[in-house]
């Protein structure tokens, strides 16, 4: 009698369980930089990711969500180790995050080989959008050359005749300045690549830029280096003499330390905090309430990454075993992006608008405001090199 009862109970439990019985939770690994000088970027990304989970009720497809955060310490080899750990011992279903191009390029292989989805929330390594693209790689950001191309087009339209380029000597720096040069129609009077990430004094490069007498300077220095560059640019007396254009060097994390040095500097991004769409208003307002700070573009992209994962897990009702259907669900990008309309191109990189921003001072606060729409519905330029297997 007792055993039949037990058996009946067991059968009931089995019957009650949904199709996704084998899946107890959704596991996501998140790799970013949480220590050292740029820890503030990693923390901002984590905050936004957590906020997105809050907005989804901390559940995806009816399953609880578990996130394992790992610190890449800004080093490619550490990022690779942490990624291997995430797919091999934590057995995560998704890996998200990544600020740095060189780190993600060292780390993507173990993730993709383990047939785990990689959702890049910032790093814009072009090879992952082109020849090394994969059905398992998605991006909620851009490739390194896209934003500089938007800036170059804007400068072409404004009739800026000559420019001097300064950037860091690593993968993203070369792709960024390379992208700029590919679209810029004026004369490039010189370009300097500085040791990354150790060189923080740009006096020699700034003196050269000044001597070259360009109509404008274009630079790319993410994180704290952007603060140093802008301060030194102002101290060298160049701020009022030569207009400065940039990408990814001014954000809500660095702006409180850049202050007046950043006012008037023009850059290009796919998102700014002042976008009026509902998803963005909710994101910005709740982010400010929860963390008492302004979200950066890193945060916006991480929020979208979480929402993208959530949309796919919901679509397959938590059944993550069938990778092909998960991939299809991710490709649909059925979520409300904070940048407005969002859709993926054939290489899983967004087709999106780029906007110009400039920094304005209102009272005692400094904010980035949308200045103009630079380009609409830009497909990722590396899609043609991508042959997905």
């Amino acid at each position, binding site marked *: 009698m007792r055993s039949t009862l037990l058996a009946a109970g067991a059968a009931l439990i089995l019957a009650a369980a949904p199709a996704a019985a084998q899946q107890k939770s959704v596991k996501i690994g998140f790799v970013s930089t949480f220590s050292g*000088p740029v820890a503030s970027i990693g923390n901002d990304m984590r905050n936004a990711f957590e906020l997105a989970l809050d907005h989804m009720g901390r559940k995806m497809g009816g399953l609880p969500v578990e996130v394992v955060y790992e610190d890449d310490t800004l080093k490619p080899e550490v990022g690779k180790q942490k990624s291997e750990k995430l797919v091999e011992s934590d057995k995560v279903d998704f890996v998200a995050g990544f600020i740095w191009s060189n780190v993600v390029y060292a780390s993507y292989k173990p993730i993709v080989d383990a047939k785990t989805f990689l959702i890049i929330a910032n790093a814009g390594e072009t090879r992952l959008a082109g020849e090394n693209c994969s059905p398992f790689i998605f991006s909620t950001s851009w490739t390194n050359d896209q934003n500089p191309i938007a800036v170059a087009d804007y400068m072409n339209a404004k009739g800026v005749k000559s420019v001097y380029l300064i950037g860091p000597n690593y993968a993203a720096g070369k792709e960024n300045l390379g992208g700029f040069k590919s679209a810029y129609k004026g004369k490039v009077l010189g370009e300097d690549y500085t040791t990354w990430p150790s060189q923080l004094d740009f006096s020699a490069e700034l*003196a*050269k830029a000044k001597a070259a007498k360009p109509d404008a300077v274009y630079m790319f220095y993410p994180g704290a280096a952007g603060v140093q560059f802008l*301060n030194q640019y102002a101290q060298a007396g160049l701020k009022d003499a030569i207009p400065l254009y940039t990408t990814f060097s001014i954000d809500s*994390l660095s702006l409180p330390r850049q202050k007046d040095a950043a006012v008037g500097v023009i850059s290009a991004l796919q998102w700014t905090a002042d976008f009026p769409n509902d998803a963005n208003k909710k994101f910005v307002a709740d982010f400010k309430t929860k963390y008492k700070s302004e979200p950066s573009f890193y945060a916006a992209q991480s929020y979208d990454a979480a929402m993208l994962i959530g949309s796919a897990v919901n679509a397959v009702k938590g059944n993550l075993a069938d990778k092909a259907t998960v991939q299809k669900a991710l490709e649909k990008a059925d979520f409300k992006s904070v940048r407005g309309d969002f859709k993926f191109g054939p290489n899983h990189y967004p087709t999106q608008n780029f906007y110009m921003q400039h920094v304005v001072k209102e009272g005692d606060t400094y904010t980035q405001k949308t200045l103009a729409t630079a380009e609409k519905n830009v497909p990722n330029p590396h899609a043609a090199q991508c042959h997905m297997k």
Partner: protein
Amino acid sequence: MTLFIEQCLNGLQFGLLLFLLAAGLTLVFGIMDLVNLAHGSLYMLGAYFAATFAAWTGSFVLGAVLAIAGTLVVGMVVEVIAMRRLYGRDHLDHVLGTFGLILFFDELVRLVWGPGGKSLAVPSWLAHSIQILPGIQYPAYRLAIIVVTLAVAAFLYVLVMRTRIGMLIRAGASNREMVGALGVNIKLLYTLIFGLGAALAGLAGLIQAPILTVQIGMGENILILAFVITVIGGIGSIRGAFVAALLVGFIDTLGRSFFPELLVNLLGRQAGATAAPALSSMLIYILMAAVLVVKPQGLFPAGSR
């Protein structure tokens, strides 16, 4: 030509700044035979102190003075609490112990000031450029750095060469045991020297603060250069540190500004542009290797006459 003069000024300024760091390092290394990796942490503390005190007092100069006093005190406390346990031990123990201090200070700063870093503005009376020669505008703040660091170098020269303490310091660098045997209070001397080194590092940190940002780990990259200077100049020699710091400052700055063009002309556009950034950042290490081949003890070895 104006570009060359401006780059020379940049090199001079950078070299003098490195001297402040290297002077403290070489004193501690030469006299106490202590490898202090945590020197960069004192540099970082100087910057954080200056940012905080300048915000409290509203005056850059007052903030700077308080910051120097602050790092002096921190340096002496660290010497009494931690460094005394390390004297006479193996260099590996020094490296381990002082590396631990780096982690300690990084975490301490994170707890006290948060992970975001601070900023210190250039004082308004220095936030402009000065015309030093026809056609050459140079930032007033960087000129002020040159003046202040030269004054500090002169002060150190007088202190080491003309005073009783300086005599003991020089004697300590040549033969530590003998100084102790002659009845000098070597413990107090060590505490003073370590404090002096810390104050110099703090001064370097606060001077750099308005140019760079004040952030955790800011001392680690520049510390490598300071060690290179110590080795080139001869361990324990202030004069050696001064000459080597200027050499490194000039070579690094001029290398970064003119070496790429030179390479492009020699190797052609493509190869030159690829090799230049890597090679120009290697120049100072090539210099170090060359000096060590010719003079293994450095340019001005402290022990010899």
